[in-house]
């Protein structure tokens, strides 16, 4: 249900942004003839939610985001680190690894002079990580006792695909705030042994597909040339 409320919020904000454009008497001059596919700047961002989650002892991580405009398209790259140390009902699970996502967004607010965005995009994510778990299990027959297990995967690699949507809104000159919702699917992990991969950095719970993700991002834009 919350995904529909979220979609409505995004659409309402996008509509509001477009509505704000219409009463402006002067339309910005956009060169649509020459060099329209040349990037005009690089936006650098950080994910605030990941940093906030890192305050908790069970999660450490960070994520940086880059995008650059090519007319209505934005080429994006996200790079991050994610490590968890989770207390389980019967043991402990830890993992750590890096991930990278790259893809492109289509901006539906092309003519917005402030480079606000309401976008839809596609990402391909790659993760490299390790994980381990220790836990106890009671046997079906009590006479066989309780077993202690330790299992680990030293070097795993995985990938997945995401459909993304979200907003970037200019707050002050050179500074944008943005939110990105991610519908992640088709996860695949290779290189594991007796421990089935659980939490893939950048993706989440491997056994769950699709899996939702959410970022709240702060962006700074470096223009390639001054107006």
């Amino acid at each position: 249900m919350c995904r529909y409320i979220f979609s409505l919020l995004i659409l309402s904000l996008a509509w509001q942004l477009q509505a704000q454009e219409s009463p402006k008497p002067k339309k910005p001059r956009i060169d649509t003839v020459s060099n329209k596919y040349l990037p005009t700047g690089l936006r650098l961002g950080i994910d605030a939610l990941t940093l906030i989650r890192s305050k908790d002892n069970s999660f450490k991580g960070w994520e940086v985001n880059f995008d650059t405009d090519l007319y209505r398209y934005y080429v994006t790259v996200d790079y991050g680190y994610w490590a968890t140390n989770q207390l389980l009902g019967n043991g402990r699970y830890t993992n750590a690894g890096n991930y990278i996502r790259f893809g492109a967004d289509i901006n539906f607010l092309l003519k917005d002079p402030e480079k606000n965005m309401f976008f839809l995009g596609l990402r391909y994510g790659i993760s490299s990580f390790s994980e381990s778990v220790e836990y106890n299990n009671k046997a079906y027959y009590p006479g066989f006792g309780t077993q202690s297990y330790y299992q680990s995967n030293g070097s795993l690699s995985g990938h997945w695909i995401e459909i993304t949507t979200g907003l970037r809104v200019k707050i002050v000159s050179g500074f944008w705030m943005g939110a990105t919702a991610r519908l992640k699917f088709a996860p695949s992990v290779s290189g594991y042994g007796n421990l089935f991969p659980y939490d893939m950095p950048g993706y989440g719970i491997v056994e769950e597909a699709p899996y939702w993700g959410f970022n709240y991002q702060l962006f700074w834009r470096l223009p390639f040339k001054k107006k």
Partner: protein
Amino acid sequence: MTRFLLFLMMILVGASCFNEPDCIVTATSSIKIDFKQTKTDKTTLLKSVVDSALILNYVKVTGIDTSYLKNKTTATVTLPINPKTNTITYYLFRQSKSGATSRLDSIQFSFAEESRVIAPKCGAYTFFLDLKVVQTSFSQTQYKITSTRLLKNTTNVQVYF
């Protein structure tokens, strides 16, 4: 200001969208065996598989000194595996329905294991899989592995009498 409030709302809604995993544990360290027989309808000549209740004098399991089951009439048994090993042997001493004859059958299974974290609240569990019959007194046509994964309420083997 309106934009900022909308952003705050989005954060709150987004935070509530985090996935909450289900806590359903299906792993078990036991093998479920069903006893079956094939019956032929005399008029239609159609064959059907039905449950076959056996009179089990006792069932022994390697690693357990005493009999695991004694004097039970049943069409299904759930027998434990020893999680410390990767094979288990069951000895089934059964009686004919008339009670006139008795017979000892044995069946040895091998299996592999895989650890899975279900969810932090539920914990991690060992799943036993890749169930195989290593040795048995039953003929090859007398048994059928229906599920190679050891899961709760799932029949792993059907034995035909």
